């Protein structure tokens, strides 16, 4: 056999035989868009429906063409790709919608002078009525709630992360799948299903019993949030620790490294990115909680910088009351503006946290660069 080593060959490569041409997806996409528009024109056109119908037509068209030309394996691969990309696009819809809602409604509130630096102390419906009826500026801010949220969440994190991480470590490294470990695993799962309000009531009842009736402080709220946070931390950390390869542990043990140092310096750094993700997830999960804070931290309208004494506000409770019990029931718009502004701040806060966690994770994460 003489190999033709000329780079430009007229005959089609055997390797690309029975394969869709490169432009196939674009052709199908164009066809799907046109057909989608046609179908939608029949039932009444709207952009959203057009997108959905075209996407379905595209997937069906591409997959069946591929099935006809390339066979079922490639077609399945294309189908999977369509589904995976499609699910991502679907997930973006609510994200964009919610973020858009929050941005549109929240920016006016956020741009209010003093929104981040003042509290609601002394703000009454009179001002809101004036704002609506006479066009006066909307006053009142979220400083107290922001401060409260940060402190309560911080305290909850300080409680939950060590407990959660240590528990995960126990389960993966020490539990040996024994009876206790299995019990903990099981009950941690059960704990994830505790409704947030029950966590709040439990924490409140606990502190009422231990400290005295009417004990409502940021710390009580932090305990309630910890009950919600711990299972998320345990679950996610446990999964991440489990997939650290055993050979790394063995490598450390063989160097005469103690188990606890191995865990701290080899296992955790290897899993840190996942753990950080889990912790941020847990924080995000509780930082937006309303119900448990209402029953544990009281309801403050003024600034309190001590988590261990006195009532404390938080952003979610602030948002909640501003939406459901506007400062002026007759003119709820200023309250709603403050609520959305606070929601925006809360989201930004979590974003910043998330970024920080990723940075931390990156510093310790396995180096894949070269």
């Amino acid at each position, binding site marked *: 056999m003489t190999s033709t080593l000329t780079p430009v060959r007229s005959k089609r490569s055997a390797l690309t035989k029975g394969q869709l041409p490169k432009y196939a997806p674009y052709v199908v996409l164009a066809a799907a868009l046109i057909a989608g528009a046609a179908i939608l024109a029949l039932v009444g056109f709207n952009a959203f429906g057009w997108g959905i119908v075209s996407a379905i037509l595209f997937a069906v068209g591409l997959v069946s063409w591929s099935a006809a030309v390339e066979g079922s394996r490639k077609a399945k691969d294309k189908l999977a790709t369509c589904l995976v990309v499609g699910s991502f696009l679907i997930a973006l819809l609510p994200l964009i919608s919610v973020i858009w809602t929050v941005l549109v409604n929240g920016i006016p509130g956020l741009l209010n002078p003093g929104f981040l630096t003042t509290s609601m*102390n*002394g*703000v*009454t*419906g*009179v001002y809101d*009525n004036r704002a609506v009826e006479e066009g006066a500026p909307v*006053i009142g801010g979220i400083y107290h709630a922001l401060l409260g949220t940060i402190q309560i969440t911080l305290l909850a994190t300080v409680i939950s992360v060590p407990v959660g991480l240590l528990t995960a470590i126990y389960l993966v490294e020490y539990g040996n799948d024994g009876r206790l470990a299995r019990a903990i695993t099981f009950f941690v799962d059960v704990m994830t299903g505790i409704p947030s309000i029950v966590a709040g009531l439990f924490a409140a009842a606990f502190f*009422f019993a231990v400290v005295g*009736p*009417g*004990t*409502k402080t940021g710390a009580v709220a932090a305990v309630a949030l910890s009950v919600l946070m711990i299972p998320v931390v345990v679950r996610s950390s446990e999964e991440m620790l489990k997939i650290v390869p055993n050979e790394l542990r063995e490598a450390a043990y063989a160097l005469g490294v103690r188990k606890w140092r191995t865990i701290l310096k080899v296992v955790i750094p290897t899993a840190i990115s996942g753990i950080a993700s889990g912790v941020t997830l847990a924080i995000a999960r509780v930082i937006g909680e309303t119900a448990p804070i*209402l*029953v544990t931290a*009281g*309801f*403050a*309208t*003024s600034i309190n910088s001590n988590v261990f004494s006195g*009532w404390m506000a938080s952003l979610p409770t602030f948002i909640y*009351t501003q*939406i*459901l*019990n*506007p*400062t*002026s*029931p*007759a*003119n*709820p718009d200023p309250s709603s503006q403050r609520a959305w502004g606070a929601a925006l701040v809360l989201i930004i806060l979590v974003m910043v946290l998330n970024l920080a966690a990723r940075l931390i994770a990156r510093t310790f994460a396995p180096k894949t660069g070269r």
Partner: protein
Amino acid sequence: TGTAPAGDQASSGPKVTGTLTGIGASSTGAAMDAWKAGFAAANQGATVQYSPDGSGAGRKAIIDGSAQFAGSDAYLKDEEFESSKAVCGPDGAINIPVYISPIAVAFNIPGVTELKLDAATVAKIFRGEISNWNDPAIAAMNEGVSLPDLKVTPVNRSDDSGTTTNFTDYLASAAPEVWTDKSSGVWPASLQGENAKGTSGVVKTVTDTPGAVTYADDSAVGGKLGTASIKVGEEFVKISAEAAAKAVEAGEPVEGRAETDVAIKLDRKTTASGAYPVVLVSYHVVCSAYDSQETVDLVKAFESYVVSEEGQQAAADSAKSAPLSSALAEKATTAIESIKVKS
């Protein structure tokens, strides 16, 4: 910042300091904001904190001693009154009316801002027995109003609520033949319909849904929705603060309570001219006796301010509530004066 009330009545009493803690109804939250601000401005060193956890939570709190006063849109139940004696002394807790709120029947019918309805028609609307706004029963009472062919969507409160208690109490008393359920804070489960959480929730839902109708504190309805005049006796009474105050005056004291207690049993079937009987009275529940003089002074000063003309005006400005009538305010003041240190 805060309102600086002129002609300070509360500050004429003893100088008070300390923190007063209240828990209770969320519906009076806006008024409480006004009272907190007004009271704090007049009394340096004294603060009031109020957590709008709900009336039930408030009553629980005063019974177990975790709050010094409760805001409640119903007076204490008998068994609650009995258990309050443990913390509040032998005379138990007393109910002081602080806030009157007429409940509007508010609807969203494009082009219609006023309707006249009687109790039975209202009941039928909310039971789903009248399903279109052009129903003859409605038309008969509203000559000259062009009623559209529009589906009726009744919207009720999804949460347990004082507004619902008073509204269903009105329907059950004034139209017992149609409204066969007992009065209750929870909407009867057998009725299918739309609902939403909180006064602002139902108002918003109705505002967004043509043909929807709900019942809500008048202050939150504002001018956005149409409101119904209710048939009392032979006339249709438009909702207003005065009409609500009249209906409250027609009520009677509740039996078996402390001598000075001001709990009112409303008469929903009143035929008093100009009275609007779909009304809710909110109370502050306070102890008849407290452990320390300081607390007594604080409670007295605060509650006096709340029921004073000026306090009522502050609430009206802020929350658009209906002020107490002077007769009622006087009774309330007497009750407040009776608060004493535990012996």
